[in-house]
């Protein structure tokens, strides 16, 4: 069978969509973690944890699927990045599971010290995960040293360059904002008022990071903006991004929390899209020696394999979409006090 479109580009998009889904979903759940310690008192903290209690598992399903798709469609990227970014990824995985354990453990004992210890671990793990994910993205923009056998030749410290750290901090800021808005959406009364303050604080923090990162990108990594010159239509993406961001304080001010949260989701999605547009058709830039870069051409599975996978996706997707929509329909409406965790 032959598909009338470019399979590698289609898979680049598909992996991108899965990882964007993960960023949106785990983004708010990590963001809850970064503002968590600001909430005073046991009840408030429990409410925040309950707001993400039933979803962390489902959010991690997106990461597993995204990782699986990357392995399947671009095995060389999967192999190079995971073995090359070894320690950050191990810390990331450790953080993800540890965080989940902390959520489940903290309320099991009454002791104040027990609870504060898990609270701090939960919050630190959340910040660490967001930071590491951002640093990884930053390094994809900077480029990493690769040899002609596609292997990473740098060290752990190569990854900790100033620009990537800046992207890391920006990611923390983004998720803090995203999570704060989710908190406003899911809570009421005193806690909600507090969460509204977090939203305004984190928007300012994020705006600063955003401007700095944009300037640094345009100055030092103009290749990320190349395509906007050649294909001006793509400028719609950054414009949508800025509009979505400006819409957030407006909706929060008007107490239209759902719209604020949706705007924040759009902001996260368009940022991921900006990253994808800038990167394409590269997947991992080699710096120095750009000729060793991993692209959607040299790092993908064979056309035969991509064709089979695309057929499976096209056959299965209608079912997945149909029953997923049906399930969301079943669970529409307000969440009540019913205990929604295991």
């Amino acid at each position, binding site marked *: 069978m032959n598909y009338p479109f470019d399979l590698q580009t289609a898979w680049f998009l598909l992996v991108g969509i899965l990882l964007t889904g993960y960023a949106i979903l785990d983004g708010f759940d990590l963001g809850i973690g970064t503002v968590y310690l600001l909430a005073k008192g046991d009840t408030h903290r429990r409410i925040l944890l309950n707001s993400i209690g039933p979803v962390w598992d489902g959010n991690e399903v997106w990461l597993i699927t995204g990782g699986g798709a990357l392995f399947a469609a671009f095995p060389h990227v999967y*192999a*190079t990045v995971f073995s090359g970014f070894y320690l950050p990824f191990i810390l990331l995985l450790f953080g993800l599971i540890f965080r989940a354990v902390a959520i489940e453990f903290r309320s099991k004992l009454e002791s104040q010290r027990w609870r504060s210890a898990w609270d701090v671990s939960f919050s630190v793990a959340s910040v660490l995960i967001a930071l590491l994910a951002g640093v990884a993205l930053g390094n994809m923009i900077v480029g990493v040293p690769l040899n002609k056998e596609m292997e990473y030749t740098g060290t752990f410290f190569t990854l900790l360059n100033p620009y990537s750290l800046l992207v890391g901090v920006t990611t923390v800021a983004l998720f803090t904002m995203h999570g704060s808005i989710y908190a406003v959406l899911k809570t009421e009364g005193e806690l909600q008022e507090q969460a509204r303050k977090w939203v305004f604080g984190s928007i300012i923090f994020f705006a600063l990071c955003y401007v700095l990162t944009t300037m640094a990108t345009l100055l030092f990594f103009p290749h990320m903006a190349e395509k906007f010159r050649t294909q001006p239509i793509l400028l719609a993406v950054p414009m949508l991004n800025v509009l979505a961001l400006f819409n957030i304080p407006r909706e929060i001010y008007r107490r239209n929390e759902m719209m604020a949260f949706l705007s924040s989701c759009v902001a996260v999605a368009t940022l991921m899209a900006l990253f994808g547009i800038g990167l394409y058709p590269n997947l991992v830039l080699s710096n120095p020696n750009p000729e060793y870069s991993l692209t959607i051409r040299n790092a993908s599975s064979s056309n035969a394999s991509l064709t*089979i996978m695309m057929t499976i996706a096209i056959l299965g997707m209608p079912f997945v979409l149909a029953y997923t929509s049906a*399930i969301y329909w079943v669970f529409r409406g307000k969440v009540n006090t019913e205990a929604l965790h*295991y």
Partner: protein
Amino acid sequence: MDTETLARIQFGLTAAFHYIFPPISIGLGVILVLLEGMYLRTKDRTWELATKFWVKIFAIVFAVGVASGIVMEFQFGTNWSVYSRFVGDIFGSALAAEGIFAFFLESGFLAVLVFGWNRVSPKVHFLSTIMVMLGSHFSAIWILVANSWQQTPAAYKIVGEGVLRRAEITDFWGLVFNPSSMDRLVHTVVGAWATGAFFVLSVSAFYLLKKKHVDVANASLRVALPFALVASLLQPLTGHSSVAGVAKNQPAKLAAFEGHYDSSKPMDLVLFGWTNPDTQQTVGLRIPGMASWLLYQDARRPVTGLDRFPKEDRPPVTWVFQTYHLMIGTGMLMILLAALAAFRFRTGKLPDCTLLLKALIVSVALPHIANQMGWMSAELGRQPWIVYGLLRTSDGLSKVVSAPMVLTSLILFTLIYLLLFALFLFLLDRKIKEGPTLEMASKRSDRGLI
């Protein structure tokens, strides 16, 4: 220790830990379908309570399974990057099929299964239960297809060289029906059924012993006992079929199973014993020629021994031999226990048999021992190959990863898995002590719209 040893320990440890959970989900999923089916047919409260109780347990098992599975997926890339490059093109199709046909199905309908009791009609709920059960089975299919391809590669061509050498797929159905996939799939899934069944037996026996929730315990036993018995009785048959495949496709593994060194001799069936790879001797209780007879219906037919393979191509015989025999021994014990309990249950004497009840309570460990030992003999028997005959385990390692790095991650993962296991036991213990409560029973007033 060198990087290879550490990376193998890490893979073995994380895989063994992860494999505690999926088999329970697979077996318990079938039991949920049976229990809820009985409820729909009889409208009896007891079946409903039993279903709802086991759904709660299922949710815990599923959650810990997902958390532990994340590490599994990513360590192919971190520790085994050369291997990942080699198999990526082949595994891609299996992974895509698992994601699309299994993963979304299971995790999506799980929400309805656990939280949807008052939101959907009983029939739609039952349908969701079936979907979750199917999802976990589909997952097993695709993982087993990929794993079996490592044992018996088929439908591929080799492209490229050096560390970038890889196998490319030539035929999707050739991958799905590679020589060992169906035998190994059936054997693994039936093993998972037994795991779920014994899990239910154990908790139900605990309730009978404590004389608590007796109705629900009896209802669960009515479904789980025959299921446990059938699954345990099927295992020697599916296992035999699997071994016949090993004899054909992986003779070194077969020889290691029975500690068989001399190719000029027929193969004995060793009941238990000790094998010494240095002296090439296997001592123990044996039935001469029995393995030859089982495989070829000819007790005098010689079978390829380990002497045909150079030292560097032999699997770690002692490990393979012992894990294989432990698996079989445990399996036999399971048949015995299930048969005894089923007989006592039919005659209504099970609640009085304190000793048997206690044995059933601890028997929850038996299928897990059999599962773990079976996997170890299958995967250690594949050594020294990571992809049989194509790529050596030592060549599959990440080139850029050093021993201290792997050691660091090994320590971190061991810690986190201990925590995760403690959490699992804690939640399980609490749910079992709570037991099926009347609040779980349906409130018909707020039935949903579908």
